[in-house]
């Protein structure tokens, strides 16, 4: 009395086709909800890259006075390199500083013309692993006895000789933190709302067929024999809906991301392939799970004949 698994597949597909109005309703609700979730997921991932790029700009610059002993500067660099949370350091010579200044002001060349000689100091640039820890790193540099030999104003180095955007940093991190929390909370809320919506739609579709379930029971069908095609149908609806949503997002992304890159050149607007794969996985998995759960709980209610 082995039941042919082919039976369930045929049964699922034919039921999907014959109840096409309800199937269409279910698929479109799933499609729209998952599309919204996906669109917001991608938006917040772009937002996150932008926020991170701002945070990454936080670095420490130590200005070296003209005429500092090169051996002292090198020793100081070696010490800074040893401070925890320092990612890398770079020495910028006076000439390099001037070249950068010229590059930055190339639209108004008269600025450079007015310079006599090279008034720009050399500097040590310190990049950080976690920009949030910038104050700790600065404190460590200030404590280094070599610093006094290298900078112009050893009595109070943080006034002009060490620059790290003291005032900006705190506010920036407050702002980025709020943006991140808000985005995550909204995404979770959106996901919950769409899961409830999808679950209810599937349950409605089954409610419309509760009489059929009763009839199946009366002609001797066992519970799992009745349930399996309904479960597979819920999964099929979710699969179709989520795949359509992913395809739409893929197409929209291909149009919108280049446009944003063109119009917002100063911002890093990109969506990593891994992010998209993650999203696709999330959508398909949550869709299928809720399809199973929704149809499973709904069918059970009508199996009591």
């Amino acid at each position, binding site marked *: 009395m082995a039941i*042919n698994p082919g039976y369930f597949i045929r049964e699922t597909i034919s*039921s999907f086709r014959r109840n096409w109005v309800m199937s269409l309703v279910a698929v479109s609700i799933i499609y729209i909800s998952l599309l919204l979730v996906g669109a917001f997921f991608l938006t917040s991932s772009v937002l996150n890259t932008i926020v991170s790029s701002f945070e990454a700009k936080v670095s420490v610059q130590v200005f070296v006075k003209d005429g500092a002993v090169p051996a002292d500067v090198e020793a100081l660099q070696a010490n800074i390199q040893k401070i925890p949370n320092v990612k890398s350091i770079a020495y910028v010579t006076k000439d390099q500083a001037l070249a950068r200044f010229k590059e930055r002001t190339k639209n108004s060349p008269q600025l450079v013309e007015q310079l006599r000689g090279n008034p720009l100091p050399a500097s040590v640039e310190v990049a950080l692993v976690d920009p949030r820890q910038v104050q700790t790193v600065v404190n460590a540099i200030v404590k280094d006895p070599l610093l006094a030999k290298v900078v112009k104003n050893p009595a109070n180095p943080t006034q002009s000789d060490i620059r790290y955007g003291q005032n900006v940093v705190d506010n920036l991190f407050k702002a980025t933190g709020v943006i991140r929390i808000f985005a995550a909370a909204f995404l979770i809320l959106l996901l919950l709302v769409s899961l409830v919506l999808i679950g209810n739609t599937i349950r409605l579709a089954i409610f419309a067929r509760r009489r*059929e379930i009763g009839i*199946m029971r*009366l002609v*001797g069908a066992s519970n799992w024999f009745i349930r399996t095609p309904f479960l597979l149908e819920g999964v099929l609806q979710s699969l179709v809906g989520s795949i359509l949503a992913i395809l739409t997002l893929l197409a929209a992304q291909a149009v919108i991301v280049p446009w944003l890159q063109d119009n917002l050149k100063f911002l890093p607007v990109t969506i990593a392939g891994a992010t998209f794969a993650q999203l696709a996985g999330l959508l398909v998995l949550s869709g299928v799970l809720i399809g199973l759960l929704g149809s499973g709980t709904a069918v059970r209610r009508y199996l009591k004949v």
Partner: protein
Amino acid sequence: MISMKNVSKIYVPDKPPALSEVDCEIAQGEFVFIVGHSGSGKSTFIRLLLRELLPTSGQITVANQDVIHMKNAKIPFLRRNIGCVFQDFKLLPNKTSYENVAYALEVIGKSRHVIATQVPEVLRLVGLEEKTDSYPDELSGGEQQRVSIARAFVNRPPLLLADEPTGNLDPATSLGIMSLLNRINKTGTTVLVATHDREMVDSMRKRVIALENGKIIRDQSRGVYGYGD
């Protein structure tokens, strides 16, 4: 085959019971008519045997199984031994005649090959070979009833219950259905028919159980429809 002991069924408290203290025994291979006016309890009688309903009190045994204390998971196995022709047909609306009949075989795990040979045969027997691919809403009441009959005995159950199987049929078709039920009975199947078709009951001369207001008022072998009306 069937045993009812002191069975009562009350749908609404404080109203007269649908069945009251019914006792009866039906042996294997019998052909029994249950007659009575509408509201006399015929359908309740049938639905209790199928375990679609539970009695308010009393004992029911069908095919040596205690129907009342049966676990939910066991019910499908009971029903596979009972073919039932429903008064309201109970066909699956999204399935064709063929698929509705085939469903009764699919639930017991018959192969597609077996289904493909048995279903057309049964549909021919009830005169629906032309309508195999029609959906229930494309069939007349009589045709739907015949699909229901075909589904009830396609898996050759030892017990066949029929609730008004000729209620929607013209006299010629009714006669055909009754002789079909008779033939099914001849192969050893116990047949129980609830009806108020007087001519049918009088011409067949089978055992008759008459119900009135939920009580058995007459139980005679080779009986007639009775009632003065």
